[in-house]
């Protein structure tokens, strides 16, 4: 397995990773940026028809100009020795050596199980948008959007703009919480403008708060979704797609494997974005869900700090604090309501990989017993999808990660 050696390696090429890589390289370090996707930009800046959004293109260009080496389609599956990562690529495998590592592994959507959630065409909100951006024809398709968080609005706008028939946006959070959040937005004029323009583009679509999906129906694919409002009314919408995500959760597998200490929101970092492990930094959603601006500034701080430019890192502390306050308000406004714990029935699949029902998992005393007795969380996704639901429904946090952190080819592991 050939070795590649760098001063700074950045895992993840979303906003935090791009900013980190650019700043570290501008500070004179030899930098590589890895991502398992074919294009940089992460999920939020996913390219549509091969074209990145403008802000993404600027950061990508900045990273390129600074000399960052971009390694696409690279999956980190192990950390076989200190300062070393094992990476599987389309073209073969390699070991990547680093002096400093920056984990900008981003976030994924949180999925909650409900009857019918495993039907084809029930997707994540970001999931359907990702498919649409890579060419899925959505013009004229009947789409209902549900779950929680500002992502629902962004996805609705994208779908409408591309000719979809968006029937409903169902937000589980109470209207009162969103109003409080709206008032706090006035302290962040940029965010307020974003919110206003998002909403303005969606005036024709019903936006129901205190509302969530209780079941999805269909034979071989989705045909309709039944919704409930907190007041008690239920009704059914026929549709082609349900785009449904209950907020975001950080991707922590690699940080866990590397032994980084966690807080209740993500990877624990200090003012320089340094984790509890010397030489390993983390930035962006991996340190706690905070949105685009916070990810960018955390990435810049991590990049400067990893390159030893501590003065420049310190100069960004106030900006980070401002964006972090906004992130905290966001978290409060879109907190998941307790009623959602009643969504799955006993026979609803909790683990989609191994087809394990909620009642079988709930009969166990914890994650370890559930894995051993039911195989919940032991399939190809390794608990990435059911894990977020298990934390919310049963209060179990997964304790450990073992390599390979992604299913890897046997040939990759035997080298």
């Amino acid at each position: 397995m050939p070795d590649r050696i760098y001063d700074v390696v950045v895992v993840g090429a979303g906003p935090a990773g791009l900013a980190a890589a650019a700043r570290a390289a501008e500070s004179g370090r030899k930098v590589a940026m890895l991502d398992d996707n074919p294009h940089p930009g992460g999920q939020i800046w996913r390219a549509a028809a091969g074209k990145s959004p403008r802000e993404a293109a600027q950061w990508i260009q900045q990273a390129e100009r600074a000399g960052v080496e971009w390694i696409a389609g690279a999956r980190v599956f192990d950390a076989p020795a200190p300062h070393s990562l094992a990476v599987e690529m389309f073209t073969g495998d390699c070991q990547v050596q680093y002096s400093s590592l920056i984990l900008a592994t981003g976030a994924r959507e949180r999925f909650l199980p409900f009857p019918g959630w495993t039907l084809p065409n029930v997707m994540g909100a970001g999931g359907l948008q990702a498919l649409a951006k890579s060419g899925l024809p959505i013009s004229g398709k009947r789409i209902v959007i549900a779950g929680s968080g500002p992502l629902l609005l962004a996805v609705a706008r994208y779908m409408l703009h591309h000719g979809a028939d968006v029937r409903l946006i169902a937000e589980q959070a109470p209207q009162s919480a969103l109003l409080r959040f709206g008032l706090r937005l006035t302290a962040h004029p940029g965010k307020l403008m974003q919110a206003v323009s998002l909403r303005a583009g969606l005036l024709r679509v019903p936006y129901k708060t205190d509302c969530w999906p209780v079941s999805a129906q269909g034979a071989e694919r989705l045909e309709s979704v039944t919704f409930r409002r907190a007041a008690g009314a239920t009704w059914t919408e026929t549709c082609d797609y349900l785009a449904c995500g209950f907020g975001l959760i950080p991707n922590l597998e690699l940080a866990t494997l590397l032994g980084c200490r966690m807080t209740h929101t993500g990877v624990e970092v200090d003012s320089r974005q340094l984790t509890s492990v010397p030489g390993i930094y983390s930035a962006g959603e991996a340190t706690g869900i905070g949105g685009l601006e916070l990810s960018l500034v955390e990435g810049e701080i991590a990049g400067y700090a990893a390159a030893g430019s501590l003065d420049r890192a310190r100069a960004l502390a106030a900006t980070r604090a401002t964006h972090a306050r906004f992130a905290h308000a966001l978290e409060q406004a879109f907190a998941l309501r307790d009623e959602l714990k009643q969504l799955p029935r006993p026979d609803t699949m909790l683990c989609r990989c191994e087809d394990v029902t909620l009642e079988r998992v709930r009969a166990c005393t914890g994650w370890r017993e559930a894995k051993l007795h039911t195989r919940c969380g032991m399939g190809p996704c390794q608990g990435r999808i059911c894990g977020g639901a298990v934390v919310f429904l049963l209060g179990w946090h997964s304790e450990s990660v073992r390599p390979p952190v992604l299913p890897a080819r046997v040939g990759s592991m035997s080298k």
Partner: protein
Amino acid sequence: MADTITLSVNGAPISVPAGTMVSTAIASAGIARYRRSVTGEPRGPLCGMGICFECRVTIDGRPHCRSCQIVCQPAMEVRTDA
């Protein structure tokens, strides 16, 4: 990006714009079920970003490929029924 690529999905040829993901080519062919679960349920893509593994298909004889992270190539053979 005006180029189109022709590949096959379950033996039927389909043309898509260059840069299209395999997952999208499958959906464009009218297929919603990408695989069957261990108890036989129909399944399709969920996360769209390489995490859930629900979109896995066989590409050129290689099983368990995540179709949402692989770009279509000319003459690729994709199977959801393998």
